């Protein structure tokens, strides 16, 4: 019995984290956007700099009516947002927040994450198809094509890291990088790991549908893409999943290349409590980068997006993988 209790707690902590993080990042996104655009954003409502505004937004979404389009496929329509959120939430299980906490310490952790996040595609396709709306369908089709093709450079760059460190276990990958900044993976095999990181970061932007790869929900072309017909909490689920995914890919970037929960100063400030701090702040830094990119760049076109994936990122990551592999053998 206590074992089940422990498991429940272990699974509840990531959920709690996602919910708190989503509220914070909603505010950060709006504030960053405002300041980039030379305005102030929330100032009058929600207290100091509108800090409580995201809570009001969430409450508003919760109280909105659920509208299901008349000719939609009702079961899939309801199931899709749940599936999308569930798969990104499930991936958090293998994310080591600190040296002493990981919900499920799998020895194929990174493999599990890649596998489980692929379910997002099915959810999006379900949403697009069941909405019975042409814009939704086009958005879903784009999204599936995009995520499937960008999974290849992502996986290849993750594989490069795996070749370099020799394990799939995320906790062990963090352990290896414990000796301060100089032992971080990004500085290994120069410059190949740096290139690997750049490929990973670019491809992960496409995986989470963020600008310049936000083609599936391109509001100026497809209204809102696959979630055009969604309202209320179902819509919020898509949003929550998007933000959860943003931190997920950022967290993986932090683990694979920037030491995860390990302190940048070696032994200094390296207790498990600080571990959470380092991991979350590294992850949030990349989330911040994603937000900055979103408010700076225009959007690519579908075929250009495919071009970037198949003709640029994939070949480079193959070469990268081979070079790192060769170097690792020679060493």
């Amino acid at each position, binding site marked *: 019995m206590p074992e089940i209790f422990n498991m429940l707690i272990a699974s509840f902590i990531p959920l709690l984290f996602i919910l708190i993080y989503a509220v914070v990042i909603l505010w950060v996104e709006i504030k960053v*956007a405002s300041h*980039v*655009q*030379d*305005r102030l954003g929330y100032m009058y409502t929600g207290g100091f700099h509108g800090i409580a505004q995201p809570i009001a937004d969430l409450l508003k979404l919760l109280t909105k009516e659920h509208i299901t389009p008349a000719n939609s496929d009702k079961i899939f329509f309801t199931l899709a947002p749940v599936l999308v959120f569930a798969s990104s939430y499930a991936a958090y299980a293998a994310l080591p927040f600190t040296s002493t906490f990981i919900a499920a310490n799998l020895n194929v952790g990174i493999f599990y994450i890649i596998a489980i996040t692929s379910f997002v595609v099915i959810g999006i396709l379900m949403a697009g198809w069941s909405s019975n709306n*042409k*814009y939704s369908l*086009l958005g879903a089709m*784009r999204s599936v094509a995009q995520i499937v093709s960008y999974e290849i450079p992502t996986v290849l760059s993750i594989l490069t890291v795996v070749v370099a460190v020799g394990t799939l276990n995320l906790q062990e990958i963090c352990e290896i990088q414990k000796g301060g900044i100089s032992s971080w993976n990004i500085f290994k095999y120069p410059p190949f790991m740096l290139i690997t990181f750049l490929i990973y970061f670019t491809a992960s932007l496409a995986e989470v549908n963020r*600008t*310049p790869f*936000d*083609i599936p929900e*391109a*509001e*100026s*072309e*497809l*209204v809102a893409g696959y979630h055009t017909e969604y309202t209320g909490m179902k819509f919020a689920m898509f949003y929550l999943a998007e933000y959860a995914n943003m931190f997920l890919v950022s967290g993986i970037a932090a683990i694979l290349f920037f030491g995860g929960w390990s302190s940048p100063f070696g032994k200094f400030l390296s207790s498990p409590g600080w571990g959470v701090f380092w991991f979350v702040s590294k992850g949030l830094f990349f989330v911040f980068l994603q937000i900055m990119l979103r*408010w*700076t*760049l*225009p*959007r*690519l*076109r*579908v*075929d*250009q997006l495919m*071009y970037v994936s198949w003709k640029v990122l994939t070949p480079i990551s193959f070469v990268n993988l081979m070079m790192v592999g060769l170097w690792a053998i020679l060493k």
Partner: protein
Amino acid sequence: MATFEITTRSVRGDLKTDTMILNMGPQHPSTHGVLRLELVVDGEIIVDVIPHIGYLHRCFEKHAEQMTNYQQVIPYVDRMDYVAAMGNELAYVLAVEKLMGLEVPERVQYIRVIMAELQRIASHLLAVGTYGLDLGAFTPFLWCFREREKILDLFEITCGARLLYNYIWVGGLSHDLPSEFGKKLKDFLKTFPKALKEINDLLTFNKIFIDRTANIGVLPPDVAINYGCSGPMLRGSGVKFDLRKNEPYLVYDRFEFDVPVGEGKMGTVGDCWDRYYVRVREMEESLKIIEQAWEQLPPGDVHSAIPKKVRPPQGEVYFRTENPRGEIGFYIISDGHSASPFRVKARAPSFVNLSVLPEISRGYMIADLVAILGSVDIVLGEVDR
């Protein structure tokens, strides 16, 4: 990038694909108002575009006939191209003045030039900003609006209105420039080039932006002329035609400025990027005109030539000016005894420019259509009137 071969019905093996009709608008984020486009698409590739207009039709021409006098038409003219209201007023007023054979004081003419050019910058800023928005870049839009705000402030201190002015009257202006206008104008002239450079850095020369707009929606010069395109649409195709130079009105012949044309710098002459860049460069030229006009501005009374009664002699007149979106023309018939026009016909640049859309967007993708439509820069208030 690549254009796609048009296939209405392609058969691969036993897999049959068919075209789909996609209804874009009238409520769509990037149709710039209430334009409805009926798209025949093959997957994401456009086979045909059929624009349906008229959602904003307000019977302008009939209204103009029903007014009690000629001056009352001016506020209606404002509402045609509502982001370049000064230009519309100018064209209408100049047409009426030509019909009456009215001479206006120099000061009025100079102020009209300054206002029209400020309005051109404001209108192009909106075009550039919303174009970025169409392509997914949100920030340039707000940066453009920040600059546009300064121009609207100038208009506000002059005539009290920010969008629809009723400022240019037959024979004069509603108000003279206020005393603080000069200082504010100089501030704007000083800061605007910097802001324009920022927008250029952020959007114009962005690699993704160029990829999205270069070689897209190519409008060859002969097609542009055949369809009667004007303004940046025509000049983007490399045709050097600007009424301010070719058929100078007001005092435009006294200023030095260039007429920028599309050069195919990033792709083909007449693509979306060229049309966009013509607008950016026109803003710089407008700045030059404003600077010169402000230096030469003579003293005088802006009300002295305003007639008590506007009752033109029997006859008809057509007058055209260069509006931010192209050539706007008014054809007015006067019956000689009534105080309101017998007939007013407006030649709206957006309407004519929009007519070329199906021609230049076949074979591109849906995402490109948004880019092409944005580069045409329509205002639905003017298309439908």
